[in-house]
């Protein structure tokens, strides 16, 4: 008898990668919006799953999630804001929390590409090579995105203090 071919069942794929996708989407959207987008992203991944070549599964599904996050952002901007960004900033809880909230507001104001790079790098510990796969750019370009994002954040702080 021939040996049956094996493949990763979607249920295992989902169990393995849903935490990373959840983290990424929470870093890109308000938390409530991220929960909705998480299901959209995995439904889209499920539709495309038979065409997935098995390489870089995490980057593959993160790239899908990123497109869904961009769509969600566009849809939100078309709607009148109910309570703008109400749940995207964690409530201040301790000393330094006000500064943290301020930093987060600045992260949220970065161009999407830079914000995505920083979230993938700092929240998920992705290497720049993998970030390149997610964003569809080179490793060097991903590294550059991160540096540009960081220096923009630093400039903002310095300007405020000056």
């Amino acid at each position, binding site marked *: 008898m021939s040996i049956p071919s094996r493949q990763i069942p979607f249920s295992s794929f989902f169990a393995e990668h849903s935490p990373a996708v959840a*983290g990424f989407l929470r*870093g890109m959207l308000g938390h409530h919006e991220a929960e909705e987008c998480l299901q959209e992203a995995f439904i889209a991944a499920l539709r495309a799953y038979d065409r997935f070549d098995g390489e870089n599964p995490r980057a593959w599904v993160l790239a899908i999630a990123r497109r869904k996050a961009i769509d969600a952002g566009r849809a939100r901007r078309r709607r009148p804001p109910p309570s703008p960004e109400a749940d995207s900033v964690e409530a201040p809880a301790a000393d330094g929390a006000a500064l943290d909230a301020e930093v987060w507001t600045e992260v949220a104001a970065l161009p999407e590409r830079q914000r995505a790079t920083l979230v993938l790098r*700092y929240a998920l510990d992705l290497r720049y090579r993998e970030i390149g796969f997610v964003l569809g750019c080179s490793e060097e370009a991903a590294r550059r995105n991160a540096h540009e994002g960081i220096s923009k954040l630093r400039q903002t702080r310095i300007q405020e203090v000056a």
Partner: protein
Amino acid sequence: MADGTTGTALGEARIRSVIRAASPTDVDAPELAAALAARADREGLIEVAYSSVDSPVGTLMVAATDAGLVRLGLAGTDHGLMLEQLAGTVGPRVIETSARFDPLRRELEEYFEGRRRRFEYPLDWRLTSGFVRTVLERTAEIPFGSTRTYAEMATLAGSPRAFRAAGSALGANPIPILVPCHRVLRKGGGLGGYAGGLDTKRTLLRIEGALE
């Protein structure tokens, strides 16, 4: 802290910790998976649905396509491997969903209580072909409470001398219990073999009154 509230430039460590805190990766995986499965089912995106079923012969893993039950893993089957093989042979959209199996669960429960003599749940035969399929189709016709020998199965499948091949066909049965390969015994009454272990084979035959 150099990057704290002192008014100096923001440090990379602070940026990192803020982004990390705002992007938690904890998820309620079972709840998310259930919601995803319900939607995938509604949208017709599931190629193989699966669920586990408790039974007197241990936890069974059942897997179905839109056509019917395609695989039943007895206790002791490597369930992870079973799902990987289903993904490779039937299709990779393999999703756990319990609701679809409620009718089968009920039938199995009745069977194990001795209240059901035949199963109504549809079968998907796609994992079998050729002689194996023929042997198993003849096996599916053995009535509750009866037994056959390997040689009889070979004859019923049209190849009286192929009783060894009939034996391995029964051993390759992807849908045990519903396709009752446990009803095939050695000539002279020896139990022969069973993928789920001889204890399970004995239990099933006792339920059916075919064994003391």
